[in-house]
């Protein structure tokens, strides 16, 4: 409905209303194959390259420090350490303890920096769309989290894990079937689905909001007549504020995704439900 309305409005006013189209830009290369490239896929690859370059440099600093036995980190190394340590201490160690935290740290670190890096492109001029705003990547990450927390549970409890996860102790026998269904749903279906959906929908909504604000600003400044131009200032201000807000959301969603993954792993390792 929205799409029809917007495209019919577009033809005469020049106002570009945001639509779901935004997330399916034209294919640039390998059209029709499973590895077709479009703008968003390219953005993802650029983010991967940026992350690798950034952390490669940090990693080199680590190596250098180790070789020269210089234990005072420089500014750049310290920034890297703070970022890595945020996941390590504030998320992994806090929820899982030192031993298990370090065990699952590679996955948690990857999830955090992937999500954050992909989110942040939503407000970087030139990119203007989050790499996580198409559901593929959130699904892959949620799947990784799903497999990992089941692996953690099975490794820790054996096959009994599925019983522990779905049949909590201390529930009256009469309610057990109901509780079993609820637990089964929430643990093995809703957890990964909500992980992926929460992230995607946040990014989609954020992008649509920004597009709405800035295309309205464009419209008011260049197509509207007389006093209506003033509205452009208002929509621009909104766009600016929402950009800052998106910066917060980018970090927050990365944090939430990683934290929830950690909590799921922790719940799998817990002895009692």
């Amino acid at each position, binding site marked *: 409905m929205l799409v029809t309305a917007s495209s019919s409005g577009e033809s005469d006013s020049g106002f570009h209303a945001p639509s779901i189209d935004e997330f399916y830009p034209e294919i640039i290369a390998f059209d029709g194959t*499973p590895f*077709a490239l479009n703008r968003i896929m390219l953005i993802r690859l650029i983010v991967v390259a940026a992350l690798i370059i950034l952390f490669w440099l940090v990693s080199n600093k*680590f190596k250098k420090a180790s070789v020269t036995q210089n234990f005072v980190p420089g500014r750049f190394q310290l920034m890297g350490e703070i970022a890595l340590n945020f996941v390590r201490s504030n998320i992994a160690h806090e929820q899982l303890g030192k031993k298990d935290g370090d065990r699952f740290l590679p996955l948690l670190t990857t999830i955090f920096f992937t999500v954050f890096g992909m989110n942040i492109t939503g407000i970087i001029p030139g990119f203007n769309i989050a790499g996580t705003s198409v559901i593929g990547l959130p699904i892959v*990450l949620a799947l990784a989290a799903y497999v990992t927390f089941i692996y953690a549970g099975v490794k820790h409890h054996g096959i009994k894990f599925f019983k522990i996860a779905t049949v909590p102790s201390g529930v009256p026998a009469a309610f057990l079937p109901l509780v079993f269904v609820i637990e089964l749903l929430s643990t093995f279906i809703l957890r990964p689905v909500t992980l992926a959906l929460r992230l995607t929908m946040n990014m989609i909504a954020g992008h649509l909001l920004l597009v709405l604000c800035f295309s309205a600003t464009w419209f008011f400044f260049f197509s509207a007549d007389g006093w209506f131009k003033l509205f452009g200032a208002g929509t621009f201000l909104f766009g600016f504020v929402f950009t800052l807000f998106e910066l917060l959301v980018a970090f927050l969603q990365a944090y939430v995704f990683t934290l929830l993954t950690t909590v799921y792993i922790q719940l799998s390792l817990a002895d009692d439900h």
Partner: protein
Amino acid sequence: MITNIVLAAAEATKNPLLPENYDLFWSSVVFVILLTFFWFKVLPGFKKTLDERTEAIEGRLAAAERAQAQVAEKTAEIEKAQENSRAEAASIREAARAEGVAILAELKEQANQEAARITATAKAQIEAERQAALVSLRAEVGTLAIDLASQVVGASLKNDKVASGVVDSFLAELESSEKASKGKGK
């Protein structure tokens, strides 16, 4: 308008909840690359750096503690040595003072003895001289008295036995009276 609607209908089939194949493919590539990178490249170095730093800090703290303990030990040693030398100095001073006192006493004693000896010698000498004077006086007194008496009675008493007896008895009397006066004087 019609094309718009057709286009919109085609677009509407795109469900943002269903991933395209290429989307899943590239997402997996991204994830696997980054997971491998963080797992095998970044995090080992990070962990190593943190461990080495902890170790270095602990090592340096321990070294500092050791150094401090050594310094404290040395200070105690020095203080003890100072205390010892101070005590030694005091005892040496004490001994010297005692020795000085002893030497002084000895010297005084020697001086006293010397003085006593000199006094005694002088007394003995005086006594001897007095005796000598007495003897010579006694001898001379006799002749002087006889000479005097001879001149008084007339120059005949020189070789007379009586006269010499008188003189002797006079002298004895003189001596005894002298002795008596000496005993009274004492």
